[in-house]
């Protein structure tokens, strides 16, 4: 009887420990904030290299701070960090032509890997910058990139990378705005089946951190996010 009691106590202690860990984990997981989801808006159909597909649109922006995106007008805890907006969680329909327009309000410099100064994965391998068609941007004038990773999973591959031309360092705010007139970059790509992807900026814009890849480059909700094909 005494032995049974010892084993019961030991089992109870282990179970209590597991319970504490589970509760702590779930509590911490729920405490994190999840950025809002931005769904692409479908407007009609479009001819693509793989036939006529629904045409979905997303509008994003890159800011030199965090005052205009998902962190609220006060910029949250790091108002001076560069950010994407209006959110970093994106969704687009499967088997569609997705056109993304990004208003680029930030300055920049030389990208460390010239590969990401070129356009990859878009229809015809092109983008438009302020209405002009281009296949690349100058390596020394990149503000940010929008790069969806090609994860080797069972889902359809999707690799898209577009450089966002930098504004001049001395660009003045536009009338009635706290930001200059942006460079407007538009590109389109075709989605496959449903899948979960991640994207991030490949221009090192985490100023003041090691290799400029820290800060907003290494925190959720600034220069990286998710891209859900549903």
């Amino acid at each position: 009887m005494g032995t049974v009691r010892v084993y019961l106590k030991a089992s109870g202690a282990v179970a209590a420990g597991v319970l504490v860990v589970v509760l702590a984990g779930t509590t911490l997981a729920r405490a994190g904030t999840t950025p809002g989801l931005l769904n692409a808006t479908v407007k009609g159909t479009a001819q693509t290299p793989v036939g006529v597909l629904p045409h979905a649109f997303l509008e994003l922006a890159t800011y030199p701070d965090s005052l205009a995106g998902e962190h609220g007008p006060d910029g949250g805890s790091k108002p001076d960090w560069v950010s994407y907006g209006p959110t970093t969680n994106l969704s687009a329909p499967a088997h569609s032509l997705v056109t993304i327009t990004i208003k680029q309000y930030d300055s920049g410099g030389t990208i460390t890997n010239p590969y990401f100064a070129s356009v990859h994965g878009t229809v015809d391998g092109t983008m438009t910058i302020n209405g002009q068609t281009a296949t690349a941007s100058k390596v020394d004038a990149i503000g940010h990139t929008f790069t969806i990773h090609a994860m080797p999973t069972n889902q359809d591959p999707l690799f898209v990378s577009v450089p966002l031309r930098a504004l001049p360092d001395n660009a003045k705010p536009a009338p009635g705005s706290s930001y200059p007139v942006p460079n407007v970059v538009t590109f389109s790509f075709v989605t496959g089946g449903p899948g979960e992807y991640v994207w991030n900026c490949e221009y090192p814009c985490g100023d003041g951190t090691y290799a400029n890849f820290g800060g907003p480059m290494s925190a959720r909700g600034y220069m990286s996010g998710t891209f859900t094909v549903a």
Partner: protein
Amino acid sequence: MTQTEPVTAQIRMWWQRVEIKRIVWIWLGITVVLAIFALIVPARVMGSPASPTMRAVESTMTIFSVAAAPVMALVLSVAVYSLTGWRSRGSEPPIGDGPPIRGSGRVTATWMVVSSVLTMFVLIWGLGEMQSLSAEASAPNAMVVNVTGQQWVWTFSYPQNGNVESDQLYLPVNRPVVFHVTSKDVIHSFWVVEMGIKVDANPGEVTKTGVVPDTLGTFVVRCAELCGLLHAHMETQAHVVSSTDFAAWITAQESRAS
């Protein structure tokens, strides 16, 4: 037991002790189980090899595991028998330990010789395998691929093929390849699991590794060094194709870039 007794007499005397017999039988049983496990599981867990390098890695893992089986079994068998056969029963603790074994030169010598043989086997085998791997990395007809890691993507360029660049790795089958690996930011680790190659990608430095991919197919390239927020997503594909398909891919990439 004394130093002057013949070895056979000592063994015969040990074997007459029931606990020794039980420990030996437990040791044999665990050894067989572990050896079977070592022969089957490690290689299967590591996946299908796609290069001689990975085959060498898997055979090394299997042989080392088999060699370690009796050692691990000895520890486990003594531990199991100590916890069961020599366990003190009742409410009172034992009065004291059993008599210690001291001054046995044969036991000490046996332990040292066996340990030395096993460690020398591991060392010599390992050095031999490493030598063969470094030979692959310095093959004169090897194709060079520059590998660049950055948070959180891989890019590949082919300096012998017009500096073609890609986010995915394409390799011709049965041709030696040397990877020149570097990083743009933090430390990454270039790892193609099925090919058995893994080398750190250090910022400002170029590290090298080589392989001869000998299996057609698509494999996973991943980062094996925790490198930040999206480390788990730092993966891409390695395509091993025929030399004809590789030439066609290079041509297509060159025409796309021009």
